[in-house]
């Protein structure tokens, strides 16, 4: 099956809204029709054809060759199929995506996977702040699905997370999992200061924690069967990208006691 290919003509000088470019919405459209889609809301008006050379046929897959930190809302509301971006993306990539796969082979801007509801988002570079975070007025951040960031993340990753899994292979910024209400965040290089601040429920996992807050209580080490089940699930959904299995009994911190206090931080190296 050949993918629809969009090749960037020149680095864009203004922010583009790429939310119309998802396989579900492009299905059945001819190349000429796709070229006419507006991707800039301002009075100047820019279309896909102005910015990209379009080839292939619309189907389950979309391949964007070339990237820019001005590509906003890449894969927003994506539902089924695969989007690959060879390069960076800007703000709100994968926002409210329902299912399918979004593969970003570069860096992502702020609010990556904001209010994600399903599917898999993979970023080979780093991500900005507020990963999965809600927009103003919204109640939930990440609400399902899986996000894997190979590089680092900015502050407030997994803010107001409700459900789903976030795996960060690189370093995490401050206040990961702030005001979290559910779901799992794994920081493979360890958790930074402020992790889980104001969390109500949910799980943060990492080898170490930079500075333990006074509102988290050390509950000792535990043998948790659920970790084995979770590891099997990660391997099934993520394959090689799955976080390493947790061998020993992790130390469990409960908190944040300044909030509901039913959240947990699991530290796998003491």
């Amino acid at each position, binding site marked *: 099956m050949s993918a629809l290919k969009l090749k960037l003509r020149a680095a864009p000088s203004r922010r583009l809204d790429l939310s119309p470019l998802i396989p579900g919405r492009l299905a059945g459209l001819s190349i000429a029709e796709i070229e006419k889609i507006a991707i800039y*809301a*301002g*009075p100047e008006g820019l279309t896909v054809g102005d910015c990209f050379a379009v080839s292939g046929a619309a189907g389950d897959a979309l391949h964007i060759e070339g990237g820019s930190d001005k590509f906003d809302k890449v894969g927003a509301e994506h539902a089924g199929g695969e989007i690959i971006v060879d390069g960076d993306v800007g703000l709100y990539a994968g926002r409210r995506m329902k299912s399918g796969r979004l593969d970003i082979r570069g860096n992502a801007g702020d609010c990556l996977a904001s209010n994600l509801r399903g599917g898999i988002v993979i970023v080979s570079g780093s991500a900005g702040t507020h990963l999965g975070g809600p*927009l*103003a*007025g*919204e109640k939930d951040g990440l609400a399902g699905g899986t996000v894997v960031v190979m590089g680092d993340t900015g502050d407030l990753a997994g803010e107001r997370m409700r459900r789903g899994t976030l795996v960060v292979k690189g370093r995490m910024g401050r206040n990961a999992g702030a005001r979290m209400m559910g779901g799992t965040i794994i920081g493979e290089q360890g958790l930074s200061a402020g992790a889980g601040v104001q969390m109500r429920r949910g799980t943060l996992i990492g080898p170490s924690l930079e500075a333990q807050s006074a509102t988290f209580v050390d509950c000792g080490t535990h043998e948790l069967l659920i970790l084995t089940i979770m590891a099997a699930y990660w391997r099934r959904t993520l394959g090689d990208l799955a976080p390493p299995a947790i061998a020993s009994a992790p130390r469990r911190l409960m908190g944040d006691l300044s909030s509901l206090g039913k959240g947990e931080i699991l530290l796998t190296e003491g």
Partner: protein
Amino acid sequence: MLIKLTGGKVYDPANGIDGEIRDIYVRDGVIVAPPADARIDEEYSLHGRVVMAGAIDPHTHIGGGKMTIGRLMLPEDHRGDPVCRGHLTRAGCGHAVPSTLTAGYRYAEMGYTACFEPAMLPANARQAHMEMADTPMVDKGAFAMLGSDDFFLRQLAAEDDIEAIKDYVAWTLHATQAIAIKVVNPGGISAFKFNQRQLDLDEQHVHYGITPRDVLLTLSRAVKELGVTHPLHVHGCNLGVPGNVETTENTIIGMNGLPVHLTHIQFHSYGTEGDRKFSSGAARVAELVNSHKNVSIDVGQVLFGQTCTASGDSMRQYGNTKSANPKKWVVMDIECDAGCGVVPMRYRDKSFVNALQWAIGLELFLLIDDPWRIFLTTDHPNGAPFTFYPHLIRLLMDKGFRNDMMQKINPDAAASSVLASLDREYTLYEVAIMTRAGPARSLGLKNRGHLGVGACGDITVYQDLADREAMFATPVFVFKNGELVVKGGRIVKVVQGATHVARPDFDRGIEKSLRRYFERYHTVGLDNFKLSDDEIITDGRGRLVIQPTAARA
């Protein structure tokens, strides 16, 4: 500069013109008699088109603190409806609570040339006027809210002389640059703070011992005797409560012939019949309105979709918080003198209650005979955003369309409404009364709402389409003070409207007792409380129009 509008079909109810082909001449912003042989600078050929005065919305929440709260609370409303910058217009956003600029543009693009903010509480007057100053294209004005403020309730409880109360009412009009007086849930907003959760017409306020009936009679008399043209603008007791039709009836009868305007009466016309204890009281209200010539109303039609209710009635808005959609709301006190409740609402056509509200509003429109005493409103944004007006006009003018829409609503609600049996269709003449001549006469706008000689050149030209919704949504031309501002439903010139105020005479001696009161209880000094003319005219952008008031009785 002389403009000639040639050959249009003119609907000008104030001058009794019903669809006659006429030429209209506008010289320097004012409509003039056909000049003998003057040179025409611009001529617009309007053959086959419909010409009316610019429309006037007598009740739309476009200023004051509650809109700002609505905007702060509903960022999704902004995100969902962004408006990009145009070559003349500035960017904006918002569906239910649009930004000020967007509201002004949208009104003008629909052929409206004047809008009135009905709930400006005196402590918020500065904010309200600033927001209205930021609303371009249209003339505006505001009604000052009294009736739950401490100073007035003390006066009433102490059985002060009516002259003193009149002075206070007139002082408020001057101090807040208002054109009329509004009362919201008379005494009820104050009673809410004394833990009362309802206040019926004859129920006593636990602290002051007064009843809403006292408030209504006193204020209505004061407004009448001061010679303010617009009668007391009443948002009655028990808004939205099933069975409130009784209260509305008692209010109409209890006014004893004093002039009164009952606003968004749809929300006050609910019975308690049927299995769900919710039914239409429209027929009962319409009968009383028809027989009481001292009463005028606006409807506050509900139309389906997402909106945001905003009212000074904190007591009733607190009761509505359970229906908030999305689930968030603000109910607050303001300076201990009034309240404010902002509750987002999504009216659904499949909901029995919402569908019946929709039907009740339309029943009222169709059952009240005299279009001079009923005005077309949705109580923006409480029943629906004002952008739904063209849709509402089509519902009133097109029985076939109305019946089609009825097929889509909750079948139980449709079955329990008499709407299907009402054959009335509004004519263009009646629509012109309801949206132009009527509000202008009621508000005392001397040179607005008609096309006679001496009227201001606020003129809207429509295409005569069978689809009335399309016709009223995109006027061909809109003139503001004789300048072409909208062409084909798009803004071609941005202008700034005037602010209309009423300034009845009063005895300035009242300031002595007010000054004492302000020093003792208020957070703001009396002199800072008052709005000066300069604040409205800011940098010469604004303009004040002082509408005449009758001699003090």
